[in-house]
C-alpha cells in the first residue's frame, strides 16, 4: 500500500539559494524568528504570568465583547475575560497535549517500527499487515473510535491523537531502520567483527534516532492541531478551560458579532504549528549536513 506519510520537503532550494542561505551552520532569519517564537511559547507555557499578568478566568461582565483595543489587545469574550490572557494561559495545556500525544505516537511507532525493521521477515510481515489495517482508519477515524470506547475528555483525546499518528511514525521508522541496516558503514562494522548488539547500539540506533528528533518536532505542531480539533468538536478539553480548541469552540456561538474570540486562539494554533515545522526542517537540514 502506498498511502504513507512522508517527511515533508526538506533541503531542496534551487542551487543559488541553497548556496547562500542554506549553507550549514549559518543561521537564517527564518530560524531566528522561529527560535524567538519558540522562546515566547515556552515562556507562555512555563511562566504565563510573566507574559500575561491578568487572570485568565477573571470575569468582568461590564467589559464583555470588546473589540481589540489598547486595553485588551485581542478583545474580550462573553464574560469580559481578556482573550490575550486566556490565549497565553492556554499555551501550557495545548503544548502539553501536543507533546504528550506526539510521545505516545512516537513511542508506539518506535516499538512497531523496530519490531518490523530488526526482527526478521516474519515479524516484519505481521507488523506490516497490522499497519495496513490501521491505515484503513484514516486520520481522525481511529481517534474517534477510541473516544467512542473510552469517552470524551482531555486525556482520552490526547491518547487518541497519539494512537492515530503511531502507524505513520512506525512506517517511517521501519524504512529508516532498513536503510541504515543496509548501509555501507554497518556492513563495514560487520566485517570488522563487531557483535550484533554493538552494531545496533553504536551504528544503527544513533542514525535512526536523529531523524526521529526531526519527526517529533514536526509532529508536535500537527498533534496540537488535531487535539484542538477534537476539543473544538466537543470531545476534548471543555470550556471554560483556556485550551485553544475549547476557546474556539466557545467563540463559535458569537462568530457573527465577535470574530476576535475565534480568530486569536486559532492564530496561536497556526503559529505553533508553523514554528514547529520551521524548526523541524532546520533541524533536519543541520543533522543531514553534520
Amino acid at each position, binding site marked *: 500500500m502506498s498511502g504513507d506519510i512522508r517527511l515533508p520537503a526538506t533541503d531542496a532550494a534551487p542551487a543559488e539559494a541553497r548556496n547562500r542561505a542554506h549553507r550549514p551552520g549559518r543561521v537564517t532569519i527564518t530560524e531566528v524568528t522561529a527560535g524567538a517564537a519558540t522562546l515566547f511559547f515556552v515562556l507562555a507555557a512555563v511562566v504565563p504570568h510573566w507574559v500575561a499578568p491578568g487572570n485568565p478566568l477573571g470575569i468582568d461582565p461590564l467589559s464583555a465583547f470588546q473589540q481589540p483595543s489598547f486595553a485588551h489587545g485581542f478583545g474580550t469574550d462573553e464574560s469580559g475575560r481578556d482573550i490575550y490572557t486566556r490565549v497565553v494561559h492556554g499555551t501550557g495545556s495545548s503544548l502539553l497535549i501536543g507533546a504528550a500525544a506526539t510521545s505516545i505516537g512516537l513511542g508506539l511507532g518506535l516499538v512497531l517500527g523496530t519490531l518490523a525493521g530488526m526482527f526478521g521477515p516474519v515479524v516484519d510481515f505481521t507488523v506490516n499487515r497490522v499497519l495496513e489495517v490501521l491505515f484503513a482508519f484514516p*486520520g481522525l477515524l481511529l481517534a474517534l473510535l477510541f473516544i467512542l470506547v473510552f469517552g470524551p475528555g482531555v486525556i482520552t483525546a490526547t491518547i487518541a491523537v497519539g494512537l492515530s499518528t503511531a502507524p505513520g511514525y512506525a512506517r517511517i521508522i521501519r524504512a529508516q531502520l532498513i536503510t541504515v541496516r543496509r548501509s555501507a558503514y554497518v556492513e563495514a562494522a560487520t566485517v570488522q567483527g563487531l557483535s550484533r548488539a554493538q552494531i545496533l547500539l553504536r551504528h544503527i540506533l544513533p542514525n535512526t534516532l536523529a531523524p526521529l528528533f526531526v519527526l517529533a518536532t514536526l509532529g508536535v505542531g500537527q498533534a496540537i*492541531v488535531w487535539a484542538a480539533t477534537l476539543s473544538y468538536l466537543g470531545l476534548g478539553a471543555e470550556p471554560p478551560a483556556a485550551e485553544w480548541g475549547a476557546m474556539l469552540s466557545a467563540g463559535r456561538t458569537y462568530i457573527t458579532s465577535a470574530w476576535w474570540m475565534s480568530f486569536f486562539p486559532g492564530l496561536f494554533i497556526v503559529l505553533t504549528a*508553523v514554528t514547529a515545522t520551521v524548526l523541524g526542517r532546520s533541524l533536519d537540514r543541520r543533522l543531514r549536513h553534520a
Partner: protein
Amino acid sequence: MLWAVATITFFAVRLIPGDPAEAVLGGPGSMASAEALAAVRREYGLDQPLFVQYLDHLVRLATGDLGRSYALSIDVGPLVLSQLGGTLLIATLALGVAWLLALALATWSTRGGKIAWYLGSGLEIVAAALPHFWFATALIVVFSIWLGIFPPISTSGAAGLVLPVVTLAVPLAGFLGQIMRESLLLALESPFVLSARARGESEAGVRWIHAVRHAALPAISLSGWAFGSLISGAVVVETIFARPGLGRTLLNAVTSRDVPVVIGVVMIVAVVYILMTLLTDLGSRLADPRLAVRS
C-alpha cells in the same frame, strides 16, 4: 483487510463500559424496566454469547447488512450510503482543487526566482498548518458575514460548495505542494531534462512534458493518504457548514454513542480507502511505466 477492520471495530466497541441495551433506550438515565431491556437485547441479539454475536456480525456484514441505529431506529446501511455521496463530492472536488493549487504553487515557486521561492514555500508551510475548523470559521466571517458572497450554511447549490471545498483543499495543497516542489526540483536537475534542453525543447515543453510527470509521482502515491485526511476534514467541515454527510453522521454517532452507525461509517470509509489506494497504485503506474516493468 475488511475482515480485520470489522474484527477490530467489533471487539473495540465491546470494550465500551455500560449496557448496550440501555444505550438503545436512551442511556443509563432512562430507568428502563427489566422487561424493556430484555426485549431490546433479544431484538439486537445481545443475549447471545460473544462468539456467536461476532460470527453473526461478520455474516451480516458480508451480506451488506450493517444493523440498526440505536438512536435513530433506522437501518444503518441505507443511512450511511445516503450520506456517502455528499462527502465523496466535497472530498473529490477538494482533492482536485488541492492538486491544481499545489501544482501551480510548485511550478511558480521553482521558476520565479528567490522571492517566489521563499513566498511559495512559506505559503505552503502556513497552508499545511491551517486547522480546518479555524480556516472554515475565517472564511465564513470574511465571505459570508462581511462580504455576503457565499452562504455560511452549505445549501445544496454550487455556491454552498465553494467554502467547504476551499477549506478542505487549501491545507492539503500545502502538503502536496511541499512534496511536489521537492520532486520537481530533483527532476529539473536530472540528465533527461538536460538532454531534452540540449535537443532544443522549449522551457514549457521541458517542464510540462518531462518534469511534471516526475513531480506528480510522489504526490499521486500520497493521494490515498490525502483522501483519508479529507475524510477526517469532512467531520469538521460538515459540522461547521451544516452539510449532510458521513463526517457529521460519524460525529453525531460518536457523541450519542450510536455504535452500529459508527461501525457502519468506519466500514464504508475503509472500503473507500482501499479503493482509493488501488486507484493511486494504478495512477502511479500510468505516470511511471517503470513500476509496471519492475513488478
